[in-house]
């Protein structure tokens, strides 16, 4: 019975469902949460969901990581390396944005004692 889960299609389906569920948790988070840190976390959740989605969909049953070792002498039967590279890049970027956002939040909290984004209304006419 577990063989059913060993097919590419079902793995993809699980990944899609899971990642999209995660994505919309983040989505719901950014739409409802007003705490800056929570909002940033929600963004990260969404990003993670996307990574999962992307990487997961490029996995097919039977493929291995794109690294040759002593056993595999050639680059065949391996998963696509580009998504992994792209995800790597995106992770770093997400990290950078998160760090920056937190530093903004810290500084803003120091000045005003608030971290509620819906109450940031000094900028108005």
């Amino acid at each position: 019975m577990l063989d059913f889960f060993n097919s590419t299609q079902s793995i993809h389906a699980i990944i899609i469902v899971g990642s999209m569920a995660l994505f919309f948790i983040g989505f719901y988070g950014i739409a409802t949460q007003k705490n800056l840190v929570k909002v940033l976390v929600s963004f990260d959740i969404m990003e993670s969901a996307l990574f999962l989605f992307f990487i997961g969909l490029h996995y097919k049953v039977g493929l291995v990581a794109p690294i040759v070792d002593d056993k595999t002498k050639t680059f065949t039967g391996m998963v696509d390396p580009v998504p992994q590279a792209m995800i790597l890049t995106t992770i770093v970027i997400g990290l950078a944005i998160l760090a920056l956002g937190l530093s903004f939040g810290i500084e803003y909290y120091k000045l005003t004692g608030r971290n509620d984004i819906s109450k940031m209304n000094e900028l108005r006419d």
Partner: protein
Amino acid sequence: MNSIFLLLNILPILFLYQFGGDLHVSFSLTKDFTLSLIQTPLGTFFAYLSLISFLLVTVSQKSKKLSCNYYALQLLLSFAMLIIVLAGDFITFFIGWEIMTWSSYFIISKSNNIDIKSLQKYILFSLASAFSLIAAIVISYSFANSFDFATISASFKSMPFDIQLTLIILFSLSFFTKAGVIGLHYWVVDTYSKAPDLFSSILSAVMSKMGIYGLFLIYGNIVGYQELKIMFGTILNGTDFGYTLAWIGVATSIIATFKAITQDEVKRLLAYSSIAQLGYIIAVIGFGTTYGVAGALYHTLIHTIIKLLLFINVAAIIAQTGKNRFSELGGLIYRTPVSFVMLLIGIIGLAGMPPLGGFASKFMMYNAAINTKFALILIGMLFSGAASFLYCYKLVYGIYLGHPTSKGLETQKEVPLSYLIPQIILALLLVLTGAFPGAFVKVINPILTQFSLKALPYDGVGIMDSAVGNFNGLFIMSAFVAFFVLILLLISRIKSKAKNNINRFDISYCGEVPSKDTSLHYGFGFGTELHRIKFVNAILKRSTATFYDALALQTKRSSELLSRMYYGNIHNTMIIILLFFSALFFIGVNS
């Protein structure tokens, strides 16, 4: 400074004269836009009109200490107008038009009593005019594939009727705004009255004429009077189009006349008078007959002369006394006699009374109306003319006659010579046009030919000839002078002792002796009785200000409403983005 700019103002006149009539310059702006200057009889007429006006105004500016900026802007303005009237395509025309708009805006802003609201009014109406113009220009471009007057004119016939109509309406709206047709005149009065005093003369005498030039250009050159007749059909002996336009003009003229009478500020009265006079021109400009065009052109000339004269005169008085209201002026006749005579000549011309040029132009326009059997139009013009006597009298009485109403007027001196010289020249012109109305026929005829209309008959320099009656200006002028002198001589023969230079308070006043504190000047009381006349009151109590203020208010309210969206709640902004995405998603994916 003044002399330098005076010279600079003479130069274009010489330049134009040098070219004779064959000026044809073009300059490629881009591969699509070629700016071209072409001299047409119509353009030349308006060019000389504006250039000479500028020259005269510059002469009168000598006694004012004006900055170099001011003169430079004024020179720019005169060049812009030159560009407008010599333009051979619409881009050139529009460039000139816009430069005119903003250079005049900056000049007006240099006035001492201008406020932001009036400036806003001026520029917004000017821009609305310009935008309507550019809309019409690009629409005509979309059919003609060219901005050239000739090409657009040629392809106009092949456009669909609704486009033709839209074009005519848009062009007309634009030029009506400049000329200050009633309903679009909201800016005129404030601007004319608050602009620098001498510059008001330019605004009224020259800049409003650019609107008239535009109308001529559209009706005569671009569309063509023949085409208008085909497009709109005929009524009586004229065209439907001309009849509609005539009603607009007559309504403008009548309403503005009544409004003028009730004004207390001198320049506001002149501004309304300017609107009214331009109403006459607009009334006849659409007739598409020889007399209509000739009348409009003649009145353009006469109105330019008169308004220059009056505004310079008034500006001199305002500069001299520092007062600009009828309720503060009065009794200046023996302090500034030359000015008085000049103003007198001006108002006689303005009222259109016979010996002076004002009559000749009105006669031409009346003839046009008879020709087309537009009886009501003719009556409207006559009626408005009759009502205009009131404001003419108010002008001369309020400033020069009666009693001085504020201190310092008793000891005024005559205005400086620099103000008087242009006035004398203009008054002479007025007398000459009155005595030799036929001379102008030679100027008009090439323009009529340009519009492919029949030329005016020419029976001599003193005679204004028309199919429905003629008059001899020279005869009337000389008879008037002769009788005047004769009666003067006869009367002065009758020796009768009189107390000259008596006390001005020695008047019949119910048996009382008025003192200095008694209000004896009736000047600012003019027009109060008009309010009691139902028909006139109906005109006077309505104002376009209500409409435009409401428009401004509604704009402001909608602006407030819209700006509430931008209240800076980033959380809601996010939700909006997400909702927008969701909405588009559901719409996009499911369709």
